[in-house]
């Protein structure tokens, strides 16, 4: 019974006829089967349903609501490709109440998951094209699912460049996995850290990510740019892309507005006529330019 109705007078108690309802916000229980640190504050989890129900399904770029009971829910994109979908993986930075609680959990503990929500990366439209993945910091987590998808369907795509950057060497995600990405034929992985973030012996690039991208000398020519990173990085990356004359339709990114419900109801991810949780989170740069600057 809701709090607003507990004051009800004599009308209470008529026997229920239709039985309890289940909220669409009620999560499925998932067990942590593996957990590891990507960086000092970014952690990855591998999850499996506690129940014997159908496997979790999603498309690259879709997200879920992950919850710690007692702390609440947080939105993460599924970090692995459905082509490696025997588990659900997510990666997150410990920043708030939920992510700190999630970070404290150990293998074997149970959390909540609901999803998948939102649209997905248009991987089918990338067939036959050259691709550049540009991830900044935690943003690279959102690119891992489409990247894995592309690597798992390698023959369908052209040349692949992965530009993975962070503030410092310690903050660079997926350092253990990058060598395997680079081993795939036709895949070129570039690692970069901001000036001052390098360590002795660092053999990657040094420079702000948009500048490093420009130095790569990649021409547009039908090449698709898939990018995710902090707003300030995207701001300067878009300037670089404009300078290099990349068509906005060929640049794909995700909006990271705060979300709660994932169903277009709770209102907080509203940007103009759209809700990021149902109309996004994947947007082309062209479509972003039609939106009010509310992201």
């Amino acid at each position, binding site marked *: *019974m*809701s*709090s*607003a*109705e507990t*004051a009800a*007078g*004599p*009308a*209470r*108690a*008529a*026997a*229920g*006829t*239709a*039985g*309890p*309802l*289940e*909220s*669409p*916000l*009620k*999560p499925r*229980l998932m067990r942590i089967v593996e957990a590891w640190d990507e960086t000092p504050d970014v952690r990855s989890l591998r999850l499996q349903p506690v129940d014997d129900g159908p496997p979790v399904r999603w498309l690259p770029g879709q997200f879920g609501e992950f*919850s*710690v*009971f*007692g*702390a*609440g*829910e*947080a939105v993460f994109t599924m970090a692995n490709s459905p082509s490696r979908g025997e588990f659900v993986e997510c990666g997150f*930075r410990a*920043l708030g109440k939920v*992510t700190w*609680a999630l970070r404290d959990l150990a293998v*074997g*503990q*149970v959390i909540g998951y609901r999803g998948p929500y939102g649209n997905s990366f248009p991987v089918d439209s990338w067939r036959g094209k050259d691709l550049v993945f540009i991830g900044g910091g935690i943003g690279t987590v959102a690119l891992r699912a489409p990247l894995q998808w592309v690597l798992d369907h390698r023959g369908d795509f052209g040349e692949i460049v992965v530009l993975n950057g962070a503030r410092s060497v310690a903050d660079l995600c997926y350092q253990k996995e990058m060598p395997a990405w680079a081993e795939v034929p036709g895949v070129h992985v570039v690692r970069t850290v901001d000036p001052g973030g390098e360590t002795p012996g660092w053999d990657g690039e040094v420079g702000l990510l948009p500048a490093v991208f420009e130095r790569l000398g990649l021409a547009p020519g039908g090449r698709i740019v898939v990018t995710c990173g*902090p*707003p300030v990085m995207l701001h300067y990356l878009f300037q670089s892309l404009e300078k290099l004359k990349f068509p906005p339709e060929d640049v794909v990114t995700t909006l*990271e*507005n*705060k979300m*709660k*419900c994932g*169903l277009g*109801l*709770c*209102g*907080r991810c*509203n*940007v*103009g*006529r759209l809700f990021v949780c149902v109309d996004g989170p994947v947007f082309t740069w062209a479509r972003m330019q039609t939106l*009010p*600057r*509310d992201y």
Partner: protein
Amino acid sequence: MGTPSAGQIHRLGRDQLASWVDALLGERKRVFAPVLRRGLRVLRAVERAQDVDFAPGRTRWSPKEFLFPRTETLFSYENRDGVPVLADPPADDVPRILFGVQPCDAAGLVRLDSILLQDPFYARRRELTTVVAIACSEAAPECFCTAVGGSPAGQEGVDVLLAPLETGWVVRALSPKGEALLAPRRGGWETAAAGDWEAALEQAGRVAGSIGRRELPAAWAEKLEQSFADPIWDELARRCVGCSICAYVCPSCSCFDVADEGSDACGSRCRTWDSCSFRLFTQHGSGHNPRATQPARSRQRVLHKFAFYPLQHGGRAMCVGCGRCIRSCPVGMDIHAEVVEVMSGRPEKEAGDVQR
């Protein structure tokens, strides 16, 4: 007295209205109606008709809380040997009646429907709810239903409309739900005299005529949408203190938060009213906030209601002109005047200066 039939309009004496309420309560229906509570006119579940305040005028809060509670449990959880066990909230299937709400508030429920009917908890309550509205016999200075397509005798979202006559009431069912509510009573009620209904509408027309605020046409939505980057918003919303009372009293604001109440051992996940005027509504974990300033947040409230929502919902504003936000604002913000000023570039004379 003619043979009672569906669609018939009735005339009720004052006592008959009260005995109708008592009869509904006797049928174990839950009746929410205006009552005076510590000097405030509020909607509450009533236990007897004599507690109901049938005087004209808005209630402090809209009726939305009876369909979309301020806080509601979505499920509860309990940690049993390391595995959380989730339980759905108990079913509440008592039919309920919103009795004596204003027509604007009934229209507000239709706005909520467009968002929240997708939610089964809301949808079940909505299905169980019959709306009996009273046509307004006066308008407050903040009222502007007529500016957004409503009327003091508005029928949108209304199942049964009551309208005051010189003596007593005229009552008419406007929907199958309303018919069902009236059907058991018709035998005992007098048929309205010729002209009673028209007299009631005429009265509502006079009330409409007393509302001095200009229409906010649906055709403004696109131009309002384009005002997003207009510096006028900084000017207009400089006063806003971000208290969000506007959203809390609003019959159509539907935004909510989802949060856990309890510990890791047991508790519940709750949905709670929220507001776009709060800084934390959109602030990312990283600290980045797309709406970092109060004017940006204030603009969102106005543009969502008068531009973004109407452009996605057939031109209807997500505002029914009840005027509660204007009445309640501690700094005299006036959403109607804001829209007019953005469109005309000139301050409305009543902006922040409503006679109270």
